[in-house]
């Protein structure tokens, strides 16, 4: 679709200028074009290089030093920070907890979002309103959401405990954020409250791009509702599902705000994530080299995951995603 920049001059051959003059003019045009390209790319490129690429390279560099964050790092320790990191129980716990949150998202939150999308894709009265409502928590910041739910899950006095009493489950004595057994599940509940609407919206867009006649054809061939869903809708929704899984994983890797305002990683590291550990070491304990090593691991995990995903999972979707986008315009 790209328009070639070398446009043939209108009515070129009849009164053609001498070859030399033409060449000069073409050269000047090419120069002007190159200036345009450079000039238009420069602001974005400069911003991106200075504030995205350089920091990441800087983290790579400082992760090899024992460094308090002031002056230029000079105590080179090689890979010692990384060796220490992978012996640190808190950090290994971060990895495990990240994995648990991702697994819960993929097994519980996303199927739930899909179910709601399928529901709201029916011809229901008021579905535009419900869609608006279910998506609303997504626009609230994680901080505000977190503070609200800290109050709701406050031990004894919070709304959650009153509801548990009301439905007769008060004797279970669930302490939500306060106990290391339940804190991760509680966190996941809040994440689902905030994010399922986002995934639902993605699925709804995917569902709406499935051609009606395919489903009708399946129905005429005698496929029941479940069969149509399982063998027609679900495969056609594949690209959307894979994107939503991808976004869930990237979100879980960098989870910080919500954890920081609700539990700050506690009790006793039970809800700590990589980003929280990094924050603790980098900004509270001034072990910046060590914290950089955590940043680097976070970066490598997302990078390797993204490459792997791009290579093996998303690649075959690319064609479909692009064409479906064009169809929507």
């Amino acid at each position: 679709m790209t328009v070639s920049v070398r446009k043939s001059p209108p009515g070129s051959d009849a009164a053609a200028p001498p070859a030399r003059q033409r060449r000069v003019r073409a050269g000047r045009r090419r120069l002007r074009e190159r200036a345009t390209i450079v000039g238009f790319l420069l602001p974005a490129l400069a911003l991106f290089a200075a504030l995205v690429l350089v920091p990441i390279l800087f983290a790579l560099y400082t992760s090899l030093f024992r460094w308090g964050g002031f002056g230029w790092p000079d105590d080179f320790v090689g890979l010692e920070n990384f060796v220490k990191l992978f012996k640190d129980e808190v950090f290994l716990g971060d990895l495990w907890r990240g994995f648990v949150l991702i697994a819960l998202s993929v097994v519980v939150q996303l199927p739930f979002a899909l179910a709601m999308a399928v529901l709201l894709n029916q011809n229901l009265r008021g579905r535009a309103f419900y869609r608006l409502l279910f998506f609303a928590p997504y626009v609230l910041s994680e901080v505000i959401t977190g503070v609200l739910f800290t109050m709701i899950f406050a031990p004894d006095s919070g709304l959650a405990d009153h509801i548990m009493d009301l439905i007769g489950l008060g004797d279970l004595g669930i302490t939500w954020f306060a106990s290391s057994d339940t804190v991760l599940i509680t966190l996941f509940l809040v994440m689902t409250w905030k994010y399922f609407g986002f995934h639902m919206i993605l699925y709804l867009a995917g569902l709406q791009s499935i051609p009606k006649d395919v489903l009708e054809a399946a129905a005429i061939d005698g496929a029941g509702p479940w069969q149509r869903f399982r063998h027609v809708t679900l495969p056609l929704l594949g690209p959307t599902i894979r994107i939503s899984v991808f976004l869930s994983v990237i979100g879980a890797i960098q989870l910080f705000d919500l954890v920081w305002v609700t539990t700050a990683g506690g009790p006793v590291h039970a809800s700590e994530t990589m980003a929280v550990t990094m924050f603790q070491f980098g900004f509270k304990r001034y072990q910046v080299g060590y914290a950089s090593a955590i940043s680097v691991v976070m970066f490598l995990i997302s990078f390797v995951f993204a490459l792997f995903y791009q290579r093996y999972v998303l690649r075959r979707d690319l064609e479909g995603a692009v064409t479906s986008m064009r169809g929507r315009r």
Partner: protein
Amino acid sequence: MTPTAVESRSPRIWSWLRGLSMHAIIWVVGAAIVVPLLYGLVSGFKDTSELSSNPFGPPRHWVTENYTDLLQSGAFWRQIANSTGIALATALVTVAASAMAAYVFARFAFRGREVVFTLFTIGLMFPFAVAILPLFIMLRTFGLLENPLGVVLPQAAFGLPMTIIILRGFFRNVPGELEEAAIIDGCSAFGFFWRILLPMARPALATVTVLAIVTSWNNFFLPLLVFTEPDWWTIPVGVQQFKGQYAEDTARILAYVVLAMAPALAFYTVAERQLIGGLTAGATKG
């Protein structure tokens, strides 16, 4: 009763039951979303002591001080103003830089174009948290702490990949004949970009602007680190600090939360189409 009568009636009953059960599910989920928000709103009108004795009902006597005290405090409005200013500045920088770059990516052929473009798309995969520590040290080195630019510029930089991808897709679909006609009429590359492409891309520009505003408005990590002085605190930082300050006064904190939510929800009802359009476009393209 004849068989035909049964057949003609039962589908109607079934579809009615089906509709009812679907609505029941939706109401339960809807309640799960609304109740926490409503709880915050109503509790803001109570005394903290009333919260545990009367968690569900309306306030026995309406306490308006929680809200009015905040609305009369300079700090709250200051934070609203800071969040707004930073969000608008971020959106402006992000969209301006992205639109220019997207124009080049969409409509010029040159060597290395795909490499540079891929570089930007890789940026999509970097969580903000990865770069925040070195970013902070750089900002400190350049004296950008306690300075709104220290938040605006990094936010804009991290917003570039998504914005460029969305705008590039839009710019590509503008017919080439239009550009040729403009050039023949003596339009420069910049003239075409400024006077024809951008006005045509208004819906896409609205979408990416809304995305940038919402992202900036909700950002917490960076402003938390950059602004230690209350003068520049944004709403999320303010809420978190307020919670620390009034730890025991739950009702007051809930009032603050509700007031802090209001602008975001109001903006959402106005810009819902752009926001959802942008998120789905960004996700299916990225």
